[in-house]
């Protein structure tokens, strides 16, 4: 039955996460942006509370969420729960949300492609004793949207691989305990040559060279990573040799990377929805309080707010659809691309409309301008607008045998 009502579990998690976002995250949002980081003591505290950005509430959706787990329940709802939670967290503050301890975007590939031993080794470190992070490194200076064009090399040697290359725009890359790194064993092989490695912090030859200054998301660390003759043992090859040595049509490292997108894009979309909603709700309150109750400004505001509300809800529904498809085990690459494309663009537009409604005072210490700076990257990372259109079009034309 078509329904847009939350299940009891979804509702419970939504309320829980919203409470956290409202009382623990939001009050810190502007200050963390000013500082350019999330305070250590806050991260310690939050980690002790058991709050993490991990694969169960954030991504792969292969495992049921920690809270309210009912393993014998018929329908999986992990992906729906994940997008609901992600929206609430980003509503609090997207930069802080992305800085929460946990495997982050590195979680899904390990979850979906790692060996049992790897899952245990890398995913069990996220405990309450100390905040830890995982990271995901695909983008390179000369390979942005073109993930197939990566140049970081992995040379096979005795007992493992030697990595050389550079990765940029790596969320939490400097503080991460490990990073899932994509490299090629032979550029001539194209996508078939790609491999994914889990590189641990402190590995000789692996350096987080610097953190980047950004338009927004300033509280969240974005690092550049360099690999100089960095030896990675064979057991850190994600999925092990057998994942790659099987028939040619077996998943390559590239496919590992791409598969990740199908679960992370809805999360990113949900965050964009959360940001837009934060801006909208903030602005709605101010307009209700300060605007005249009739005349030009009143009608202007009514129109813009109604548009914002509609666009937010439309993007949320697309996000839910992508998550729902994943939950019922259907291919959702197109839905994931659609919700990411729509939500990213929508969220920027809504933030801009809200700024317009706030007027000049919106420049001075208001949350919305921060959200505006934060939200732009949601149109870029995890695949730009352009890439999402391409992915969508490919699926639309597939029945006609035309590869666009």
């Amino acid at each position, binding site marked *: *039955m*078509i*329904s*847009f*009502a*939350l*299940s009891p579990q*979804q509702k419970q998690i939504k309320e829980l996460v919203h409470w956290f976002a409202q009382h623990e995250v939001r009050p810190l949002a502007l200050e963390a942006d000013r500082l350019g980081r999330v305070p250590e003591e806050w991260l310690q505290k939050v980690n002790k509370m058991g709050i993490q950005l991990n694969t169960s509430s954030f991504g792969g959706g292969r495992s049921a969420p920690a809270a309210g787990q009912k393993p014998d329940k018929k*329908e999986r*709802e992990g992906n*729906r729960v994940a997008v609901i939670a992600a929206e609430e967290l980003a509503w609090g503050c997207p930069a802080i949300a992305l800085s929460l301890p946990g495997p982050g975007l590195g979680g899904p590939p390990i979850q979906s492609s790692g060996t049992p031993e790897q899952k245990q080794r890398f995913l069990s470190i996220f405990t309450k004793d100390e905040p830890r992070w995982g990271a995901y490194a695909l983008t390179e200076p000369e390979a942005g949207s073109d993930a197939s064009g990566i140049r970081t090399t992995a040379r096979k040697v005795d007992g493992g691989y030697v990595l050389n290359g550079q990765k940029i725009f790596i969320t939490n890359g400097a503080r991460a305990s490990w990073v899932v790194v994509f490299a090629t064993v032979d550029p001539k092989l194209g996508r078939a040559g790609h491999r994914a490695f889990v590189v641990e912090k402190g590995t000789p030859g692996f350096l987080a060279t610097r953190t980047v200054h950004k338009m927004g998301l300033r509280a969240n660390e974005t690092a550049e990573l360099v690999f100089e003759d960095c030896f990675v043992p064979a057991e850190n090859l994600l999925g092990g040799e057998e994942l790659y040595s099987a028939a040619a049509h077996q998943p390559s490292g590239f496919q590992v990377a791409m598969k990740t997108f199908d679960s992370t894009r809805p999360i990113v979309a949900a965050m964009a929805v959360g940001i837009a*909603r934060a801006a909208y*709700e903030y602005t*709605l*309150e101010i*307009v*209700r309080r300060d*605007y005249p109750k009739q005349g030009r400004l*009143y*009608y202007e*505001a*009514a*129109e*813009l*707010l*109604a*548009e914002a*509300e*509609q666009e937010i*809800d*439309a*993007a*949320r*529904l*697309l996000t*839910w*659809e992508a*998550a*729902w*498809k994943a939950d*019922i085990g259907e291919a959702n690459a197109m839905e994931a691309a*659609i919700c990411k*494309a*729509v939500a990213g663009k929508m969220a920027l537009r809504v933030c801009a409309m809200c700024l317009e409604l706030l007027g000049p005072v919106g420049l001075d210490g208001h949350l919305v301008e921060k959200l505006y700076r934060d939200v732009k990257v949601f149109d870029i990372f995890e695949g730009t607008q*352009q890439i*999402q*259109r*391409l992915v*969508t*079009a490919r699926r*639309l*034309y597939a029945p*006609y*045998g*035309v*590869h*666009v």
Partner: protein
Amino acid sequence: MISFRPTEEERAFCEVAKTIAVEEMRPSARDCEQRRSVSASIAKRLHELGFLGLELPESWGGLELPLISQAQIWQVLSYGDLGIVQGLPGPGEAASLMRQAPEHPVWRPYRDAGQTGIWPTVAFIDGEETIEVRRSRDGYRLNGTSAPVRRAAFADWVVAAGKDNEGEPVIVVFDERTWETIEGDFRLGLLAAGLGRIRFSDVFAGNDRVLARGEEASALLGHARARQCVLEAAKEVGLMEAALDYTIEYTAGRKAFGQEIAKFQGVSFTVAEMAFECRGARNIAWAAACRVDEQGRAAEGFAWRALARAHRSVRYVTDQAVQMLGGHGYVQEYPAEKWMRDAQAQVLLYARETDWFIRRGEQLLDERKERVAP
């Protein structure tokens, strides 16, 4: 539980509807447009399957389906041809009034007629300003000409909602031809829909012709309008899906500069954006349907919004369909130009999109409590 999966029953309905849409409606769309009416065989077929009584009460022999089910069915039928859908016989917009007050005596002849044959065709006038309704001792006197409405040319019944000279809302029902139909000069689109204006020249409606007045009329009308907004939005979604699918097929086959034009991002990205619009409008319409099913009149703002969104999307998608077909998009041998015309006519017929948005915005601004996200 959040789900986008139709029920088995809905799927069964939609499968039948799709067959008719693709095999009967689409092929005769041009013909119906030229003859300016729906072919009797299509009307008969849909009647037999119960599709003309989806909204009508079960006690009348209607199907009384939830709005979410109806939305899906109309969406599929409109995938065939919106012009035909809008010209079908039956209760049309008035069905929602019937559903809300099935026992009202004013409907008795309508209900009876439906037991033995096709439901009579009702034209609905939601015209607060164009028709003067003067209260008299034992009824009302109507004067004036309505804005264009669909099925005016075929109407057996007319239902008119308005305000009387003292500002009180009233809904009157005419079951015989006391009005005049002004044919007008329609060229844009929905030409099979019998567009026309209804003129009342000092027509008397006795109290027995009155469905409701005052608060009651206002409540009935508000809810009926919300239901209609959802269904019209769903129809527009069907039309845009037709345009999208056709565009994909055309651009996958058409070549220029040595390759399928789909391979140019100027084409494929546009097609992707058309798909974004379709999905977005569909979900917003479905969500509004579910809300109205659950909350009744309290959800009317969501229904307005669904229609405003559909208006915007259907204009965009059909326009881009014409654009992607290039010269072929502009000529009548291909369906795209008709879809663009039908879309624009539909948008005009069901009020202004900016207006729906502002109305919704007024609601938002007037809500005193903090809004809780769904």
